[in-house]
């Protein structure tokens, strides 16, 4: 479905964040991308969604292809309309001063059809909690409600490919679990999902395949279940090492290991 080939992205002409990352998204899967802070996960999603220019970033090499057609350099609104690709930014991208209903309507701006009302109903089927707070300002909703609203807003754009940037950010474990179940459900309803997460355990738990990104490169990929068992992933991302104490020097993984593959 989506293929990213050797992508290099630089911010402000000097800060190189993605250094030749390549990955592939297959139709109908949940693809999990994990990596430490600053690995370039968010930059990757921004680039795919066509928003990198807004952040003063530039694609200096490589290509992004949607079903073998390059979408590099297209405007975000274009990408969304043509390829039904929706990017849910991190940290609950909602409009705080609009009510929940207005938020959902604003998100449906890209389509002009009459089905908006039905679709709002569909969002409430997924997220019943939103229904009671319809006329409240979104800024006053709880963190969980805000994240659900953000995903609900993304659903209003009728996505086929949904990019989720750390949906579990700042949520209680129980809420996270609920959210991930809903994400799984969305996936069953024919939405391909790219899930970027810090919560590696939960994410790999619902994912089909996973990529590990470090310093703007893919260092490891495979089936999610395999990654969960992988010794290095367990140590660095799941916090489950062999149980003995280590010095901080050892924990600097890029020093310890020159090559992953």
């Amino acid at each position, binding site marked *: 479905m989506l293929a990213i080939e050797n992508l290099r992205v630089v911010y402000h002409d000097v800060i190189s964040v993605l250094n030749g990352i390549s990955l592939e998204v297959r139709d109908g899967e949940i693809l999990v991308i994990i990596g430490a802070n600053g690995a370039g996960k968010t930059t990757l999603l921004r680039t795919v969604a066509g*928003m990198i220019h*807004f*952040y003063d970033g530039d694609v200096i090499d490589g290509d992004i292809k949607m079903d073998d057609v390059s979408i590099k350099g297209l*405007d975000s*609104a274009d990408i969304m309309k043509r390829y039904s690709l929706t990017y849910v930014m991190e940290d609950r991208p909602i409009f705080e001063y609009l009510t929940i209903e*207005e938020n959902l*309507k*604003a998100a449906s*701006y890209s389509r002009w059809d009459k089905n908006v009302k039905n679709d709002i109903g569909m969002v409430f089927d997924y997220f019943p909690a939103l229904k009671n707070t319809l006329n409240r300002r979104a800024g006053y909703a709880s963190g969980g409600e805000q994240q659900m609203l953000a995903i609900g807003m993304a659903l*209003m754009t009728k996505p086929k490919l949904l990019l989720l940037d750390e949906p579990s950010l700042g949520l209680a474990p129980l809420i996270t679990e609920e959210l991930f179940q809903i994400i799984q459900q969305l996936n069953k309803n024919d939405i391909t999902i790219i899930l970027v997460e810090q919560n590696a355990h939960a994410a790999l738990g619902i994912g089909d395949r996973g990529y590990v990104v470090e310093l703007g490169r893919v260092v490891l990929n495979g089936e999610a279940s395999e990654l969960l068992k992988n010794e290095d992933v367990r140590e660095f991302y799941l916090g489950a090492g062999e149980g003995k104490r280590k010095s901080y020097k050892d924990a600097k993984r890029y020093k310890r290991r020159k090559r992953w593959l």
Partner: protein
Amino acid sequence: MNDFLQAVGDGVFIGFVYALLGLCIVIVFKASETFNFAAGEFMVIGSFLFYVLFFDLGLPLAVALPLGLAAAGLVGGIVEWFTIKPLLGRSPLSMTMVTLGLAFLLRSSVQFIWGSESYSFFLELPDITVETEELLFISDPIWAGFFSMVTFILVLLFLFRTRWGLAIQAVSEDQAKSMAFGINARFILLIIWAISAACIAVAGIMISNFGALSVEAASVGLRSIPVVLIGGMDSIGGALIAGIIVGVCESLAGAYIEPMGLVGFKEVAPYFLMLLVLFIRPYGLFGTVRIERV
């Protein structure tokens, strides 16, 4: 007492015009966090465009007015396209600086095209002068207030009752987020600048109608600064109330303080008031209270 009522009444009518000016600044500020210092120049350009259509070409008012406003909106859009759009995503301050430069550029352009002499400007609107034994409200300011309010309400309806308005509100809140949800933020900004320029032109035409039109009228645009700062930079209701406050303040100063020998105090009074308000409420009377979750 009658003097007072007279002064307040006069102030309210001109205050409506200021409120419209303030609204134009506020919607641009909300959308792009840019203070449009070129408001006065947009006003003059809009009025001149209307002047050309109505007086030079002799079109009927019902045709010339919409055409003139559309032309003013077009100018606003073009200006945004060339100066603001390339700066999207950068610091709002740089855009504000651009509008300062724009003010000079537009002013010289107007001088270049139309010169700096005054053009007589008179719309034949029905005489609706209100006259009682003690009070006299002349027709032109009433019309000016009326048209400004109608425009104000139309803009509000557009902002709060249409899908476009919702998109504009979304962009006002956060450009990046709205882009992520498929709202074309650049296009929305263009629309806002166009609307703002067209509405400023309404205010300009109404003010020119008090006497004559010349490039110097741009200084009235500066009156939008106290309006917007008193009302709060991002408050639409604040623009309305502050517009009236500034109008009344100006007219009271003219009626009571100027006769004491302070000639020209009328022009300065709103700025004094602005300073006072800013001492007490730095965000203006109705500036946004930021949402904090508890």
